[in-house]
């Protein structure tokens, strides 16, 4: 029996090793990137980098394969996700690139701007690769042309520090910013496996084992990745605060947390890094769940709503004293009530939450001064 289990584990480990070896093999594409249609990668795969110069051969395509990473998204542009999404094509054609003297590919922003300009008044299909499970999808962006007054405004308010694509935008702002970044950079994430120091920084910050992934750090200190990088940064911040960006796979959201690192330079949790600990595909939330979420969003945060759903007939029921004592025990009946009330009206619990010292919700967006 023991031998069977041992063999099973060995087989599993072997398959993982094979997968890892395959992903590190210079000739084959990382499994995470294989959802991207080959024609969108052809421009980069066929770049003359391999044939190049200076004695250095860039043999691992998985480290150089890049896309236009979304680094900021406006409130209106919800179909794109900052950090996770990369634009890898337009209208099923690859992102236009040019090669520099060393053979490296860079995006041709002049050509990209032209593509948007050509689609003024129309819809442009944008091909997106997401780091959540390495999935591929298409998004459709409405390109709205500027009127002449807007064009004048742009020329007057031109910011010299802003990098220019060399071609004027004839379309209204689409609401996102991009940077040419290797796809592999989005896999530099640290999976929280368990919290191992009671009342340690990880536990106090509310890190959730298995569900949470540390995807970033203040100032981009985790940008270069590496198995020991998080540990090194945490150690170097002993006795200081550290801002970490945490993705939760169940809620599919990112939150910033501030941890205070003690003199021992430990975060207080075990983390997993590498192929098996990349961010998984988002599980589709049920329609009911989405509807509930919309209701929650529309309900204002007030104590009044606590009684809004309670019919007057039930406000003062003839409760026997025995029932009270049952509730005091806090056992099964209370748990069942919680179960049935779950997701019905969270405002009362949320009000309690607001009083506690748990991380505050995101601030309201201030109207832009522009």
């Amino acid at each position, binding site marked *: 029996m023991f031998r069977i289990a041992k063999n099973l584990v060995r087989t599993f480990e072997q398959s993982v090793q094979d997968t890892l070896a395959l992903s590190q093999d210079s000739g084959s594409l990382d499994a995470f990137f294989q959802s991207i249609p080959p024609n969108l990668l052809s421009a980069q795969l066929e770049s003359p980098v391999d044939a190049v110069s200076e004695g250095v051969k860039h043999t691992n395509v998985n480290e150089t394969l890049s896309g236009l990473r979304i*680094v900021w998204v406006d409130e209106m542009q919800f179909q794109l996700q*900052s950090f996770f999404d990369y634009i890898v094509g337009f209208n099923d054609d690859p992102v236009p690139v040019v090669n520099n003297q060393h053979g490296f590919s860079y995006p041709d922003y002049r050509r990209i701007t032209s593509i948007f300009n050509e689609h003024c008044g129309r819809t442009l299909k944008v091909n997106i690769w997401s780091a959540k499970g390495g999935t591929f999808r298409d998004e459709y962006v409405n390109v709205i042309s500027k009127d002449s007054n807007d064009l004048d405004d742009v020329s007057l308010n031109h910011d010299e520090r802003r990098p220019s694509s060399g071609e004027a935008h004839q379309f209204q702002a689409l609401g996102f910013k991009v940077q040419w970044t290797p796809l592999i950079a989005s896999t530099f994430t640290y999976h929280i496996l368990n919290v191992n120091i009671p009342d340690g920084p990880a536990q106090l910050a509310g890190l959730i084992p298995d569900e949470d992934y540390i995807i970033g750090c203040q100032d981009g200190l985790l940008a270069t990745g590496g198995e020991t990088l998080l540990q090194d940064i945490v150690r170097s911040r002993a006795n200081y605060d550290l801002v970490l960006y945490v993705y939760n796979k169940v809620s599919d*959201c990112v939150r910033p947390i501030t941890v205070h690192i003690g003199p021992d330079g430990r975060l207080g949790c075990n983390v997993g890094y590498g192929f098996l600990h990349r961010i998984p595909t988002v599980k589709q939330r049920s329609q009911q769940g989405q509807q509930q979420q919309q209701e929650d969003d529309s309900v204002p945060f007030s104590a009044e709503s606590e009684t809004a759903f309670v019919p007057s007939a039930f406000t003062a029921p003839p409760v026997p004293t025995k029932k009270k004592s049952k509730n005091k025990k806090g056992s099964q009946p209370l748990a069942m009530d919680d179960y049935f009330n779950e997701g019905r009206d969270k405002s009362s619990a949320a009000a309690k939450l607001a009083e506690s010292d748990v991380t505050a919700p995101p601030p309201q967006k201030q109207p832009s001064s522009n």
Partner: protein
Amino acid sequence: NMEVDRLMLDKWRQWNVDMTTWRSIGSGPIMEF
């Protein structure tokens, strides 16, 4: 505690990561569209 965490996570659902001030391994400028 876990239930409190769920409520807190719900409130972060629409929040976006702003990486424009981060050090990154990306190359070239940040372009706005």
